[in-house]
């Protein structure tokens, strides 16, 4: 499996373990894009319905992040099971392309960031 090297992987037990707080922290700490990857709904969840919870949170999170001025192209939810390395590599490639076009988010460095300037 070959994919772009510019990704930090954070392993969690289930996509529903991804508290949306994590995404805000990732952006605040300098991530340009975030991928939430989970097992295919409706039946692939080891915990029965964890992925469904992630599925419910994603669109509301997306709308809220959009209101924060974060382009939604940079926040993806993909169902990628453990055996789908090809799909993972493909999504990584696409996301790297997306960020090349959007440019870095650089939350703290932007001219209208959190400073008083």
């Amino acid at each position, binding site marked *: 499996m070959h994919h772009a090297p510019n990704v930090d992987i954070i392993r969690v037990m289930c996509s529903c373990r991804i508290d949306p707080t994590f995404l805000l922290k990732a952006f605040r700490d300098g991530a340009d894009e975030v991928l939430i990857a989970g097992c295919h709904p409706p039946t692939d969840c080891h915990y029965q319905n964890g992925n469904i919870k992630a599925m419910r949170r994603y669109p509301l*999170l997306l709308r809220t992040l959009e209101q924060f001025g974060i382009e939604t192209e940079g926040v993806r939810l993909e169902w990628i099971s453990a055996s789908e390395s090809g799909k993972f590599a493909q999504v990584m490639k696409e996301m790297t392309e997306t960020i090349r076009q959007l440019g870095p988010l650089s939350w703290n460095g932007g001219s209208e960031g959190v400073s008083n300037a």
Partner: protein
Amino acid sequence: MPKPKVAFYCCASCGGGEETVVDLNEDILKVVDAVDIVLWPVALDFKRKDIEAMADGEIAVSFINGAVRLSEQEEWVELLRRKSGLVVAFGSCAHLGGIPGLGNVANRELIFQRKYTVVPTVDNPDETFPSTAITMDGYELELPSFYDTVKTLDQTIDVDYYLPGCPPPPNLVWDAVMAILEGKLPEKGAVLAPNKALCDTCPRNETKPEDLAIKEFKRVATSTPDREECFLYQGYICLGPATRSGCGERSINGNMPCRGSFGPPDGVVDQGVKILSAIASIIDSTNEEEIERIINSIADPLGTFYRFTLPSSLLRRKRIGR
């Protein structure tokens, strides 16, 4: 023994917090007996020079309400910090940013554009905007500068304690004043209110089913909630699950869902995203399209979830321009 000196000051706020002090009613006389009020702009005439003339640490406690939006407010709170033993962030705006903090979805330029040109009731053909200095008839006049970003009090100066609420209820104010006078204060940085979620003390908690499930979001603007049932159960967005208790359930008793003015309980960094997560998780659907349709019935997620906490949230403000 001289009475301890107390100051009240307000920055970006509506004055509702100051009103709470008056809402102590006759108890305020006991407070006035016990302390010397050295600054209280809404009620008493003291000037900045009076405070500047005091020794550092001479004021026992300053209760500061309001968020920090102007350079003048920053100067005032820095002065009060120097002159005070304790600083208490008083009310939602000082504590979390509050309603003025919603200004962080814009910046100075956007706010000035709207306020001084776009608003239909404004007639400003020369497009005059506030500036920090102007010379008129030989006099140099100054105005404070207006920041792009609203800050909480503790993003500006060191804060010892927090009194939450919009406004803080009189009983919590009273308890705080007594704790200070008797020297029975908790650890520095504490929020002087209970540390439970509002649902825990909500009179409607008993009507909440084991598993909440929402098929459609309702708004109090367009329909009237039942007076007994859990708001979330009825489909009204209520911030109770992610909000600190202690307000006296004033909204709930007025048949309004909680809007979150007390901020989150200890341990929660970002109240808005926590309630977002909780509410999205109980949407009663497993179909992506239907979920999206239900979520689109929420008119303004950021304004709803971060109504009082935008400046204190993880991202603090909207990003304008890349």
